[in-house]
């Protein structure tokens, strides 16, 4: 039988991986916008923490940060519940995974967006101000749509990295596709050795199709956002 009957588990793991990646993407996207705004604000008390955030997070391996944040936070929580005499409260691994991955890749998105906003010509700001738009409106109506064109290659790259980084979350107890494969390997260990190779190759192929599919989506998006910059077709 194909995949020894572990197909449904692998499928469930794949869904978990995709959900986790999309959740982390949303969080890190938002954090990136906030971080880039803080860095570009010109106010020291906003720019300095933002710079600290991007330098520290990008200078430390994602796996180390993941374990550091997950276990330290759980440890802190245990101390608090102990002090209050409450029963132990376990962090939901999925929430932890999304939060940690979102926090880490938010730093990378901050840099992506910062570069993209700087790539929009200054005259666009001046023109928006001359039309009497507030800074907020000018950002969302004028700068943001143009910035996205410059940000897209970076966003696409960050997304692929997030997608591949989800493979690590099995280490903090999530039932993602890698964990599903490892469970399947344990379950079939008596039926002959080659199953480890079979399931791991299946996982590799799942990831490969996910990254290929994302690549196609982003190619379409890049085409869409660079309308008006392509050579006219007659």
């Amino acid at each position, binding site marked *: 039988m194909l995949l020894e009957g572990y197909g449904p588990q692998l499928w469930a793991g794949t869904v978990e991986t995709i959900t986790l990646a999309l959740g982390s993407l949303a969080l890190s996207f938002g954090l990136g916008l906030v971080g880039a705004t803080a860095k570009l604000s010109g106010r020291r008390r906003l720019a300095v923490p933002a710079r600290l955030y991007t330098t*520290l997070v990008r200078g*430390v*391996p994602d796996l180390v940060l993941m374990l*550091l944040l997950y*276990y330290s936070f759980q440890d802190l929580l245990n101390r608090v519940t102990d002090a209050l005499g409450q029963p132990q409260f376990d962090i939901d691994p999925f929430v932890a995974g999304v939060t940690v991955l979102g926090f880490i890749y938010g730093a990378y998105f901050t840099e992506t967006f910062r570069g993209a906003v700087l790539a929009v010509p200054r005259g666009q700001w001046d023109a928006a101000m001359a039309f009497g738009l507030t800074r907020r409106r000018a950002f969302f109506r004028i700068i943001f749509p143009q910035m996205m064109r410059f940000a897209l290659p970076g966003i696409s790259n960050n997304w692929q990295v997030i997608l591949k980084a989800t493979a690590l979350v099995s280490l903090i107890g999530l039932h993602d596709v*890698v964990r599903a494969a490892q469970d399947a390997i344990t379950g079939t260990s008596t039926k002959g050795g*080659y199953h*480890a*190779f079979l399931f791991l190759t299946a*996982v590799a192929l799942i990831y490969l199709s996910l990254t290929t599919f994302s690549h196609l989506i982003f190619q379409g998006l890049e085409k869409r956002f660079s309308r008006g910059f392509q050579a006219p077709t007659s």
Partner: protein
Amino acid sequence: MIELLQQYWQQYLWGSPGHWSGLVVTLWLTVASVVLGFALALPLAIMRVSTRPWLAAPVWLFTYVFRGTPLYVQLLICYTGLYSLEAVRATPMLNAFFKDAFNCTLLAFTLNTAAYTTEIFAGAIKATPRGEVEAARAFGMSGFILYRRILLPSALRRALPAYSNEVILMLHATTLASTATITDLLKVARNAASDYYLPFVAYGLAALLYLAITLGLVWAFQRAERKWLAHLRPVRSDAGAPRSV
């Protein structure tokens, strides 16, 4: 916390002969995979930009597969997957190679970084101005000499910023070795964390050490760029202007 530091600082930093510290193992894994990856990537990049499909296509497939899947999965395939195959265990040489966790890890890391480096170098070679190649051909250079004297010196320089990024990512990726029973910096931190139930101190210490290595690499590559990309530095506007007497 003091106890943790007292018991573990040697394992983090120095170690003793025969017992390498986490830091040494991490640095060794990084250097070995980056050097081997570089040696693989150079010929592969030249094949990748070749106009002959039978040379370029296999390299394309290699980088496509290795850049499209997570390194953790590649490591698991090298470490657990391949060794589960009867054919591998029955061949004495392969059996000896894949039995050792260190070999498997180094193989996975090397192939992974080689894939990314190949694409970086191939991109840089493709971005060579046509005029440089035409001038070299006009001087009668072709093939090996053209690559050695013209294409590679300028392409490798142009690849430097992207390559420095890849080296730092490789340093960060070596943390995966801890999942394959190798006692690198992260594994020492994990042991210390579970021994003393002080995850923040144990992992925080490792994080600081990784940060220090990263900043050291950034500094070294900045110096390298200043040296080898000096011709691309913006020129001061008064340079070359006649000096006032």
